[in-house]
């Protein structure tokens, strides 16, 4: 019975873990006060480069993973250089535009991406490997949040002007945040490719962008654990809804998302709320 359940939902658990990568990629910049959808573009870049590397050299996807991460980080660094001078609203718009362009680029670069036909990637990625990678990633974010970088980006997010008058270089810190976001997003793109064993222009598109940001905000954008929780909840939600309300699962998904945001606007995991309770 339990084994059946596991067999049925095993892949959902795998996708949830990959989604944690995407959510943490989005969280990395959001935690520095920047709303950006560009994680999708890093994922596409990392995914296609990693896939090509595996297909052409036959190396294990695990060895391609660092290459994907570096590719994503480089793209993110370029995005940071170009877009960080924009104010918050424009940054969000520009990054969304970048996502739209990513699909067009993928479609028109068939030698790298397979164009409309996509790429199939016959590799195996065990759930155990994925779990280890995820734990490593969580360790990185845990260390980051307690480090001076973590303290400074929190300050920059809450009040950039005050942070600057305490000597914190906001632009530089946000550039670091972008590079982290790019590395995590690029790696996530490779892992998604390995999970799906097939990627196409539609794999990395606007729906992932919205899914990522919704997962982070749903889980709580003030702590990295929120992104992790949000990715799991957001992956589980459609699965549960399909089992419970198959007729109207999309409507139920939307309604659940709406209800959580209205009643828990700071997300499921909110360190400030804990502290407020602690203070009483």
């Amino acid at each position: 019975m339990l084994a059946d359940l596991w067999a049925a939902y095993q892949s959902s658990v795998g996708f949830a873990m990959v989604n944690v990568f995407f959510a943490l990629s989005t969280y990395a910049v959001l935690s520095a006060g920047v709303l950006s959808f560009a994680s999708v573009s890093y994922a596409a870049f990392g995914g296609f480069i990693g896939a090509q590397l595996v297909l052409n050299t036959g190396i294990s996807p695990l060895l391609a993973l660092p290459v994907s991460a570096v590719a994503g980080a480089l793209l993110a660094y370029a995005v940071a250089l170009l877009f960080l001078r924009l104010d918050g609203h424009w940054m969000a718009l520009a990054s969304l535009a970048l996502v739209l362009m990513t699909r067009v680029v993928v479609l028109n670069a068939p030698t790298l991406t397979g164009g409309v036909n996509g790429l199939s990637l016959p590799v195996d990625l065990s759930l155990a490997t994925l779990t280890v990678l995820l734990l490593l990633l969580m360790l990185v974010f845990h260390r980051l949040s307690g480090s001076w970088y973590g303290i400074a980006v929190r300050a920059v997010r809450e009040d950039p002007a005050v942070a600057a008058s305490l000597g914190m270089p906001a632009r530089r810190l946000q550039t670091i945040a972008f590079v982290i976001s790019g590395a995590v997003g690029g790696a996530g793109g490779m892992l998604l490719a390995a999970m799906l064993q097939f990627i196409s222009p539609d794999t990395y598109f606007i729906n992932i962008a919205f899914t990522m940001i919704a997962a982070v905000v749903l889980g709580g954008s003030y702590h990295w654990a929120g992104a992790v929780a949000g990715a799991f909840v957001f992956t589980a939600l459609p699965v549960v809804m399909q089992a419970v309300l198959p007729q109207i699962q999309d409507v139920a998904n939307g309604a659940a998302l709406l209800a959580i945001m209205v009643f828990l606007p700071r997300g499921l995991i909110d360190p400030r709320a804990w502290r407020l309770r602690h203070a009483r």
Partner: protein
Amino acid sequence: MLLFVEQLVNGCALGSLYALFAVGFGLVFATLGILNAAHGTYASWAAIAALAAVQHLGAPFPLAVAAGVVAGGLLALLVDQIAFQPLRGRGGPAKEGGMLGALITSIAFWIMLDSLAGFATGQQSLNFPADSYPARMLHLGALPLPSMQLVTIAAMLLATAGIHALVRHSRFGAAMRAVGWNGAAAALGGVNPRVVIVVTAFLAGATSGLAGVLGGISTQNVSFTLGEGLMLKGFAAVVVGGYDDVRGAAIAGVALGILEVMSAQYLSTSLRDGITYALLLGFLLLRPRGLFGRAAFLRA
């Protein structure tokens, strides 16, 4: 040469749809600070409402358009009051401008309204009956001018001019800009932000609705994909045109429409989207705040 002019008119008509979408989207973004992912669904639902008015009530063309426009506006108002109103005044880090929560609730409505639109049309693409809209072909010399295209362009010009006049040259527009700049300060200045919010939401939904009805007729497609298509291109128009001036969004929308038609005619159909987004990238790099964009300054 004739073909060129003909395609120019085609491009203007197509671009007018993008422009209408962009004007409403930009209005909400500038005034209410909301990146509204559900904005495209208003167009789908307006087209569905207009089609229903034609099929079930036998409404003539102007009334069908009006029904769609009002439906789009009311839907936008409903979404605003359910999805955005509860989040107002809760604050958040200044730089995100309270944008996050509203973005997520708008995504929630996007998912729901798209899915419900799928149910409403039976998961297929519906058509307006051929006799329900002006289908006559006018002629200017040798140039054929489909009257529906002229109606579309005229509707866009009227809507843009009207909204521009409202925002820039009326007291209410001053109030809208004040709310966009700083809601709390606007309230102190005797502006009722609540009224501004309601009117802005309705206007935005109505323009999106207008684009939906006209687009539903001219593309022969009434379904949830109507709004999605408008959203992807209309959004590009917002970025190119800038969101703080409706004229910029309108001009950019028309320009994108012309570009799209021309590149399909003279270059290649497959490059069509590529050219649009290459232009988008160029604007992001060279003129990142849009055609009429002003430099933003750091708020001390």
